[in-house]
């Protein structure tokens, strides 16, 4: 028999889906800003392996010569990004949901087993509650990353008024690098997230919109009345 199993509370579903377009806009407008001084590359021993970003990429996404536009969008949606993140974090703390999310001691060891299981190397996945060990790490890391984007963002946005944040982030240059690297991190998170959601299937995906999963429970045993034998009757030999 089918049964409804509650999974994701309303507040988590809302903040998840509100964050998606906001983060997309923040990444896009961030690209418009980054283009004006696109100095980062992956260079080892004098050889540049990849330069952020190739000309073709800028052309494809129409990113060039839009600095002022990028700043205007970025400095509006930063409020929404921060506010939505704050609502999510407060909710997880107040509701106690954080217990399901924050990695436990064993999570770091178990996450490997989850990974091996997902890669079809290992048959059994470790037992889990709402989230497995790898999810606990990923979903906590993404919040830490979001907080990091906020702090490094403020550090490069107002480096004089928030000089202590700039100092905390290792200076103006390093803060900008972290801010950039975190953005690349979101893109990788997104890719893996999408693959995992597709692999997990409809029931799982639906639960992030409707809040519940449908599970199969054993039908209850039919009640069988066993007649009590009369006292004078001899038990059957």
């Amino acid at each position, binding site marked *: 028999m089918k049964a409804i199993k509650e999974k994701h509370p309303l507040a988590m579903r809302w903040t998840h889906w509100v964050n998606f377009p906001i983060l997309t806009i923040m990444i896009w407008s961030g690209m418009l800003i980054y283009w004006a001084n696109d100095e980062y590359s992956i260079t080892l021993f004098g050889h540049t392996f990849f330069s952020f970003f190739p000309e073709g990429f800028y052309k494809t996404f129409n990113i060039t010569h839009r600095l002022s*536009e990028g700043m205007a969008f970025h400095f509006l949606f930063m409020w929404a990004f921060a506010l939505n993140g704050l609502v999510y974090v407060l909710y997880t703390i107040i509701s106690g949901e954080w217990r399901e999310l924050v990695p436990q001691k064993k999570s770091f060891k178990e996450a490997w087993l989850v990974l091996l299981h997902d890669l079809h190397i290992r048959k059994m996945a470790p037992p889990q509650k709402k989230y497995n060990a790898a999810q606990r790490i990923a979903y906590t890391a993404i919040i830490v990353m979001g907080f990091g984007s906020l702090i490094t963002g403020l550090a490069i946005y107002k*480096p004089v008024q928030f000089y202590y944040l700039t100092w905390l982030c290792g200076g103006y240059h390093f803060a900008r690098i972290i801010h950039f690297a975190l953005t690349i991190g979101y893109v990788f998170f997104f890719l893996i997230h999408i693959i995992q959601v597709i692999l997990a299937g409809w029931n799982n995906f639906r639960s992030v*919109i409707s809040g519940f999963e449908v599970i199969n429970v054993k039908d209850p045993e039919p009640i069988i009345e066993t007649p009590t034998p009369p006292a004078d009757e001899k038990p059957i030999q």
Partner: protein
Amino acid sequence: MKNPFSKKTKGPKKPLTIEQKISRRNFISFGTFFIVSGAAYGGWKWLYNSPEEVATVTAGARAPLRRALNKTELAFRRVFSNNHLVKTYPKAMAAKNVRHNEDIGSEGKIDVAAWKLQVKKQSGEVLSISLADIKALPKTDIVFDFKCVEGWDQISHWGGVKFSDFIKHFKLDDQTALQYVGLETPNKGYYVGIDMPSAMHPQTLLAYEVNEKPLPPKHGAPLRLIIPVKYGIKNLKRIGTITFSNQRPPDYWAEQGYDYYSGL
């Protein structure tokens, strides 16, 4: 009281089956999801295609985004303080080759001997000040990380007169009750507006030296603004005129979609 319209009440409602519960909740949640997604997309389309602001002292931005920039300015003005100083560095760290981006309004050479700074008071009175008059005031040096709105920055060494010292010396204190300072190049090709608190910040200079030498034309000879609490776009080269006003003075880059405040 019986509701006369509910004729069909035939005893207690049947409890929903599990299948009914599932499809009912799916309908509500997916319905909400698609409606809200549609509304969000519509909102984005509205914002993205919103008309450009009416050109005033600011121009070139989408009207709602300009409103947002101005509101955000108000929020961050609250954390502005004269006690928040830009980080300074030892002289040895200053770039020998000071980066040069633009010459708008300060192209070519200028006759430094003939140059005079025009200070227009709100009363209409105009002070005409020579470079020698300015150099006679106590000199302040600053080695700081100059930040461009494009994203690059460079540690550079500037010398000149603190704007606040300049104000005091020329008895312009009453002018600082006004909200803005406007600066223009002699040919009016480049102009900036600075909010009074930023202008009066202790690290704001009217600079006549870079790396302890008189400013070359490309860095704004004979006198330029060095305002570390703002992006480079506000650091006007070759000052011709200074004005005071309660309205935002014209600003070159604010007319091209950039934030008027551009504070750091």
